[in-house]
């Protein structure tokens, strides 16, 4: 059973301190929601954990099953079992979805999947997320709508089977049908009870489909309040004002 442990994480972007000591532990079988206002540093947390070069770690640790992944390269972190569904997936011209996924699955498993088996898994994964088969031949995220990009992030997660998935606003920009489809994907992923989910969101909408065990309120680069699912309802009713004032 896996555990992601974020200890006193401090992160700067271009000499500007964004994260000011984040402490959070996500265990397999648990779903955590992080909610917070725009600019509070939620994506910074996600990117820093994944290893984006733009973010400088100025203090703290991130342990995956006891190993400090801050020492690892981006791809090593991913192969260690960490997945980040990005808020704004980038378009990669010239690289087809199927080619990309095959490379990613090969990297994750340490060997190339059998072609037929891979094609079958891919088709099943795409069907489950209502993604048209023609997307396999398209260039990665190129010209995809916001909702299509998000579905593909979930498709990747389901194919790569990470230990811990960080979903950065996977719900934003989705219509009701897409939200349901994506939520079902997340629920399939966590159904085994052997994976942990860290769900970053603004809205309680997705939490009606994907029930969190813990809710953390993020403001000013740190977690300012924690609680159970009921905390999300409180945020829905009262907004973030109380927290933004306090952290300013």
């Amino acid at each position, binding site marked *: 059973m896996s555990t992601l442990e974020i200890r006193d994480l401090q992160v700067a972007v271009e000499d500007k301190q964004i994260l000011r000591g984040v402490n959070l532990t996500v265990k397999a079988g648990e779903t955590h929601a992080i909610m917070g206002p725009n600019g509070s540093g939620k994506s910074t947390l996600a990117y820093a954990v994944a290893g984006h070069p733009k973010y400088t770690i100025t203090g703290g640790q991130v342990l995956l099953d006891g190993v400090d992944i801050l020492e690892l390269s981006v791809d090593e972190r991913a192969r260690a079992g960490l997945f980040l569904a990005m808020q704004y997936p980038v378009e990669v*011209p010239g690289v087809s979805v199927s080619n990309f996924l095959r490379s990613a699955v090969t990297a994750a498993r340490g060997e190339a999947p059998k072609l037929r088996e891979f094609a079958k898994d891919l088709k099943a994964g795409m069907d489950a997320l209502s993604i048209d088969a023609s997307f396999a031949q398209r260039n990665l995220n190129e010209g995809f709508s916001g909702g299509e990009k998000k579905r593909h992030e979930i498709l990747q997660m389901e194919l790569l089977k990470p230990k811990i998935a960080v979903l950065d606003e996977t719900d934003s920009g989705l219509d009701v049908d897409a939200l349901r489809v994506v939520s079902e994907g997340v629920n399939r992923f966590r159904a085994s009870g052997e994976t942990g989910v860290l769900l970053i969101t603004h809205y309680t909408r997705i939490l009606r489909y994907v029930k969190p065990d813990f809710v953390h309120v993020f403001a000013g680069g740190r977690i300012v309040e924690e609680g159970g699912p009921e905390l999300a309802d409180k945020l829905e009713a009262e907004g973030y004002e109380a927290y933004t004032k306090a952290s300013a």
Partner: protein
Amino acid sequence: MGLNEKPLSTLHEKASYELADFAVPTGREEEWRFTPLSRLKGLHDGTAAASGAVNVTVDAAPEVTVETVGRDDQRLGKAYVPADRVSAQAYTAFEKATVLTVPREAVASRPTTITLTGSGDGVAYGHILVKLEAMAEAVVVLDHRGSAVYADNVEFVVGDGATLKVVSLQDWADDAVHVSHHHAQLGKDATFRSFVVTLGGDLVRLSPSVSYTAPGGDADLTGLYFVDAGQHLEHRLLVDHSQPNCRSNVVYKGALQGEDAHAVWIGDVIIRVEAEGTDTYELNRNLLLTDGARADSVPNLEILTGEVAGAGHASASGRLDDEHIFYLQARGIPFDEARRLVIRGFFGQLIEKIEVEELRDRVMSKVEAGLAG
């Protein structure tokens, strides 16, 4: 039009078989300003004496006639008149020319390969004529390898309704110097497909040009180059639309890596007054993989008629996008492979357009090897 004070249409007017009609370039001329003359080994100033260092062999399809002819053969130089000093030098100095003929309505059953092998450090001048008579079809490969200082002119005469597909592979050894003109003359409704791949050589300067003698001609010029440290690879394209309702499409892409890797791409397209209904597009993209590499890209489009079907150009040089690499790495793909995927993506379907499968694989593995090195 940048530094070009004169219109393109007049810039290319100078053409002559006589060496004396061209002054020795100084490097200040518009057409020579990117080329490091000191590395031309005398091809430009008359000091490079021929020693026959390039061996030409032809493996032809049965439908194709192959001849080796002398300078006096009347068919030579009909389609193309040298347009610069080195071209005139080559025309004045070549001893034997290779002539391929595809008879009327003949369809070559397999590619014809002309292999040009440099045998060491010597100078050679060459001339090739590929002539497709009306309605003929053929695939011709020019495969340059080995080491040489070589200047040549290649004429492609594509008859009415004929289709010629050419792959020219510059896969020279590291120290080779090659200056070459490839001219295609398209008859009525003729189709010309050129695929240029330039990988090796210390200095390669290749000038592909296209002219039309009747309406309906259709030319696709595709190029791919991979420039390593210290290499100067230059491609100078000229499409001269002088007939109505012809089409041209130019796509050249290159990747550069290493100190003083230098790519030059000049894309000149002229649409003359009489060339109504012309449809043309040209594109050059360069991917700079490291610091110290430089790409000069100059598209020039001169439109002299009001009646074009389409005319456009684009040119862009940029670095590998860190966000692309990050995304792929975030899915577990190691850095080197992520880089390869993105670069392969950059060249995209380009490589798949190479007509001959073995060449496709060879180019792919060369590019991959270049990336690894």
